[in-house]
């Protein structure tokens, strides 16, 4: 197991139980800069792990640190404010709002989002809004969804929704993004496009933790891989090492029986 000496996300002793079922049992994980893959058979607890880290679920025990601050049990909005955001496995577009509005919602720290500002300081938030609008348009161009900017998000295709989901979290300008199967149900062309963008963004300094089932994609994309099994970290390290690890093969084979 390779050590991460300078982790951005540091999780220690995380536990989560549902009734009598243990979804996560004493998990330790350190995630550094760059693109990290998170793999594991179905039911390994990957999405539950995301939910616990980002505050959608409150962990029963353990500690989550992000960028040297304790974020254990904080509300999702507070975690996002710290610069750690996540996408949802099934994209959650806001159907009755336009794509542009979906995007403009995202940037952090908009002054017009505060009630007093919205009521009293129209001039101030208008300047802000011009900037937000430009950023949203740029992002839409970057992910090539600018032709549907004025469509209701509910009318988008599955692939466009995936892109919108990604665009939205990027617009919050986070330090780290947790991607929950961004490639599931996406055609190969779009898959390549999304992966290219992720690489572009990595070079701009974003870090990713990336749930994916396709081992080959993980091999090509990630510098480091963490394998989860039955609510714990089975192993982690270089993709090539992990791929040949007997325990990993067993975990995956065990699932197929």
């Amino acid at each position, binding site marked *: 197991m390779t050590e991460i000496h300078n982790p951005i996300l540091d999780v220690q002793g995380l536990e989560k139980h549902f009734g009598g079922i243990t979804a996560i049992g004493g998990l330790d994980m350190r995630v550094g800069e760059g693109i990290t893959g998170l793999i594991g058979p179905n039911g390994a607890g990957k999405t539950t792990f995301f939910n616990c880290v*980002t505050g*959608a679920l409150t962990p029963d025990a353990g500690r989550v640190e992000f960028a040297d601050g304790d974020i254990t049990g904080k*509300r*999702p*909005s*507070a975690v*996002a*404010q710290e610069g750690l*955001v*996540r996408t*949802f496995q099934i994209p*959650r577009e*806001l*159907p*009755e*709002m336009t794509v542009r*509005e979906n995007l*403009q*919602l*995202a940037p*952090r720290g*908009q*002054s*017009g*989002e*505060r*009630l007093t*500002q*919205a*009521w009293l300081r*129209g*001039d*101030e*938030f*208008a*300047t*802000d*809004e*011009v900037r*937000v*609008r430009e950023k949203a348009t740029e992002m839409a161009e970057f992910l090539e969804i600018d032709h549907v900017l004025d469509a209701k998000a509910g009318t988008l295709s599955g692939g466009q929704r995936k892109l919108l989901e990604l665009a*939205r*979290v990027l617009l*919050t300008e986070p330090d780290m993004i947790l991607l929950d199967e961004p490639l599931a149900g996406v055609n190969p062309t779009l898959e390549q496009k999304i992966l290219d963008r992720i690489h572009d963004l990595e070079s701009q300094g974003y870090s990713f933790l990336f749930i994916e089932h396709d081992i080959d994609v993980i091999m090509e994309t990630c510098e480091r891989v963490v394998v989860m099994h039955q609510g714990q970290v089975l192993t982690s390290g270089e993709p090539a090492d992990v791929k040949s690890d007997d325990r990993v093969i067993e975990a995956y084979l065990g699932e197929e029986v």
Partner: protein
Amino acid sequence: MALADFFISLLTFVTIYSLFGLGLNVKFGFTGLIDFGHVAYFMIGAYVTVFVAMPAGLSETYEGLTGLGLATAFAGVPGGDLLGWLVALVVGMAAAALVSLLVGIPTIRLREDYLAITALGIATILNAVFHNERWLFNGAFGIREVHEPLSGVFPIGTGSFQLNLLLFGLPSVAILGYAAYRTAKVVRPLGVRPALLGTGATLALAGSVVFVITTMTGLVVDLGVLALNVDNTIAFVLLVGSVVAGRAALTETDHIGALLALASALLFTLWYLGQPLVALVADGETADLLLNLFWLYDATAGSAGGLDYDRFFFLFTLAFLVGAYLWVERTVNSPYGRVLRAVREDESVPEALGKPTFRYKIQSLMFGSALAGAAGGLWAANIGFIDPTQFASTVTFFAYTAVIIGGTANNRGVVLGTAVFWVINSGTRFLDDFFPSEYAQQLAALRLILIGALLIVILYYRPEGMLGEQDYDINLGRGGASDD
């Protein structure tokens, strides 16, 4: 009561309930909170405003808390009673917002259906408290000592009959004219043939109703009306003609809204001006027509006529409605409003993007409740007497119906929907005259059956309501300068 007076009181009603509906729209339309206890804030606004304004010892039958007497506190200043009342209203709004905060903190995290039932329960309990606790606000006996701001000043007029007529009559006609102009703009895309068909259908329908009504003896329905005779045959033929023409109009155009606007404008004109016009043609009588046209002018107010208190109070509430409308518009047409709508669509999304949704929901609840509180304060001053039975849960349900008819998440829709709702509910009250009085309760129930059915039908066939959700536009100004 002259028709113009009834018209004014209906308008005041619609204005106050529109304000109430705007508050609901903030919660339900823009934020997606199902607050079935909205009427509680209406009640609190009404009671607190009255309580703060009410001087002590006005009445021996009042056994509640002693009023704070703000209405008389500023007696030295000109218009001091208005000032005192306005402060009382602000306190009433703040009280409504504060109570909604207390209710919201434990309940607003709940699932939407749990929130609905809890809010309904809390409103019911609050109403029971106001009803049972006489030491609080006189319990079931209600409060009769309601301060009506500026009521001592009215009626006002210049002393000159002609000048008064000009001063109040001209704006009246101008407003009617403007309404006609706006209606014409809505109706225009209809085209000539559908418009003629629609007009024909409406007139035939009205004619049919008139024939039935005029053949009734003693204004009482009896079975004889249903017998076959010349009048009934004419009425029946007109009715069939109306249906045929209406169907034809509907098949010829897609502008159903325009057709509806045309029909309602015609019906309004017939109702409001028809009878005076008949009087004018038949007897050369102009008084009724003038009174109806110059509806802001009250001939009986003072020696030379003028603006009476009821008419003033309508304008007063209208000013509040306009202010609240702009306020809500400003709120929803901002990044803040965008977050509210995101909460409505899927709360987890703004939360995951770093927006503290709990705070947004609480603020929306408080804002909507404060508007309901303002409506309550105006309601009390308009009615002049409050008791807990005026604030039953049905008032909340009426507001939901009105908002859904007009168009959820559409502020103009709220006003339109409220108008349609109260025209159906109050406007059809004149039909009561044609039935024996012991059926009054039956007729009231029948109206509510119709309203309940209408709610279901609209939700099924046109869930977005008459106008649909409004468009949003955040004013970017030039270089950022923007204001209303």
